[in-house]
């Protein structure tokens, strides 16, 4: 007689999940849509990085002489200043009012007057101030018989020597962006594929096929195969997104695939697996409490809620301070680690002991929840009919 080993049972269930899910239109379309969104985000970043602020300044009367100085001073602070000469103040005023000009400059070089619609942009103000002061300085130096150009050369040669206790990583902004993308992707993948586990369990209950399945495989084998199968489908999707996203990012020059970006991707995939395993069994267990697809939402809702809270709180904490105490503490709580820790790793804020501690804690919780979820599932998967109370399912 033929026998079915536990490993083969899990493998068969897993293979079925892979076969049926990877071929569905929703997987292909879903992945394509997510890719488009990701590419959109990356190219938007590229666009932002490429564009510098541009101001248009109208010049009238004597002030027309400072056009070159304005442009030069603007360029030093990373601004593009476009100057337009206007024959009279009235016409310039009209253009400021219409919004064609950000500012209208008039008056002599040493006494510049600026007309704006409501407020003067602070960067533009600094540039204009500098130009005016330079005029005064040049005049004074010339009066004292000094060469202004010579003095300026000496002045610019001097700068402050800076020693930073914690030097800011020049890539820190890019790291934060990657961190946030990782948070978003992990949250989305864990919720999506977790809910798919619950729906798969309910599908087997509502179609009654579970009774046939359980006449040859054990409940834990069925649940484990399903969790592993769907987890791999999610991993496949994430890997596609990561590889294509990284390729597009380096092609558009948003960031090169430096060490930290590769590290972030690898850690992201590791934490996806841990996070998925953490939540998937619970999703499956919750699904086993109901017998109709319509009731799925009511049982998976609370699990979703935990993930949503982790996502929203984590996202905001990260933006405010990736290395703040609150972020640190939350990222060590196993339920939230899978979303927060990879983000902190990619921002470079996580110490190695924190990474190790969160891996150990999450691993322990995975074991506990898998045991608990398996128990709930085993006790309730064959009980058709009305929704089963969680306490009942735990008692068995």
């Amino acid at each position, binding site marked *: *007689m*033929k026998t*079915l080993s536990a490993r083969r049972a899990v493998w068969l269930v897993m293979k*079925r999940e892979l076969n049926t899910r990877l071929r569905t239109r929703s997987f292909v379309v879903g992945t394509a849509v997510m890719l488009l969104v990701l590419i959109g985000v990356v190219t938007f970043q590229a666009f932002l990085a490429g564009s510098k602020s541009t101001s248009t300044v109208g010049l009238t009367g004597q002030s027309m002489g400072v056009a070159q100085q304005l442009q030069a001073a603007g360029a030093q602070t990373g601004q593009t200043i476009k100057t337009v000469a206007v024959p009279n103040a009235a016409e310039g005023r009209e253009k400021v009012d219409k919004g064609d000009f950000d500012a209208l400059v008039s008056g002599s070089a040493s006494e510049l007057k600026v007309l704006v619609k409501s407020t003067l942009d602070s960067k533009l103000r600094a540039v204009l101030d500098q130009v005016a002061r330079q005029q005064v300085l040049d005049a004074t130096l010339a009066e004292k018989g000094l060469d202004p150009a010579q003095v300026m050369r000496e002045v610019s040669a001097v700068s402050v020597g800076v020693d930073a206790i914690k030097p800011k990583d020049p890539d820190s902004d890019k790291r934060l962006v990657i961190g946030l993308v990782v948070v978003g992707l992990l949250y989305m993948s864990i919720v999506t594929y977790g809910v798919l586990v619950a729906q798969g369990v309910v599908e087997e209950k509502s*179609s*009654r096929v579970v009774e*046939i399945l*359980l*006449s040859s495989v054990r409940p834990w084998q069925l649940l484990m195969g399903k969790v592993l199968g769907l987890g791999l489908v999610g991993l496949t999707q994430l890997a596609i997104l990561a590889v294509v996203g990284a390729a597009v990012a380096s092609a558009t020059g948003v960031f090169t695939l430096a060490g930290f970006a590769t590290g972030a991707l690898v850690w992201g995939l590791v934490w996806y697996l841990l996070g998925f395993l953490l939540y998937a069994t619970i999703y499956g267990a919750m699904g086993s409490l109901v017998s109709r697809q319509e009731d799925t939402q009511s049982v998976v809702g609370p699990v979703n809620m935990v993930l949503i809270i982790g996502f929203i709180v984590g996202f905001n904490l990260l933006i405010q301070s990736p290395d703040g105490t609150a972020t640190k503490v939350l990222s060590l709580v196993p339920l939230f680690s899978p979303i927060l820790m990879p983000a902190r790793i990619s921002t470079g804020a996580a110490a190695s002991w924190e990474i190790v501690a969160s891996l150990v804690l999450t691993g322990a919780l995975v074991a506990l929840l898998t045991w608990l979820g398996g128990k709930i599932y085993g006790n309730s998967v064959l009980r058709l009919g009305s929704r089963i109370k969680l306490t009942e399912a735990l008692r068995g």
Partner: protein
Amino acid sequence: MGDKSLEIDGISKRYGAKVALDGVSFDVRAGELFGFVGSNGAGKTTTMRIALGVLAADAGEVRFDGKPITHEARTHIGYMPEERGLYPKMKVLDQLVYLAELHGLSANEAHRNAENWIARLGLSERRRDEVQKLSLGNQQRVQLAAALVHDPGVLVLDEPFSGLDPIAVDVMSAVLREKAATGVPVVFSSHQLDLVERLCDRVGIIRSGRMVATGPVAELTGRAGSKLVVTAPSAPPGWAAALPGVRVLENHGPTSVLDLAPSADDQAVLAAALATGPVTEFSRQRRTLTELFRDAVAEQPRAEGETA
């Protein structure tokens, strides 16, 4: 017994205060078709689910081939649950191959068997269709194929005939006979008692979680006595009432239907009828399973006293 028979021995099951099964015992021998009958809620499905191990019994034992049944042995049972179930969005062939593999077959064997049963049950044109797109009758055929696709050593079928058209009933009957002929014990439940009577070697009747009769159909119906139909046009009303071992069941004009106890002498009845004048019809009929079942179920209320 070490002869590939399936034994249900003293199975009990309670749901809270309600006793679902109370010491149910019967055996299904190798190569035998066993009919399992009882009213709705009598415990047929519970018994079958316990035999399959999808439900745990509170007491008692299920044995196969003389040994307590193991999970491994259960994978060799072909099972058709009461609540029909297949993956609605899976294709017929894929589904059967998957179920065969889950029961321990290699991929090749699974494919071969699935294709065989698809051809045998007339599903060839539908093999690449999703199950949910099939007619109800065809879904039933797939369900039967699902129970048979792994060459089961035991067949346990819960209401396999319900919802089948007459042709499908014939196909199903033929398949079950054929499986039994290869030495497989086959047990199925049904409400179609004429079918059970025609098809089964032995039957078991369950009532309120207890077996009330088990044995070959002929023996059970024989033990219950038989019916006499007597037409004696000149006989006065009540002519047969006083005869020993006789109970009058019905009177239609000159024709009386009598219940004859197993010990009673039909020749005495004939003599009594002839004594009233001419007898134009005298026939002895075996009780049918349906009648036996009605009697068994009718005895219900007083003896039990509702253990709950």
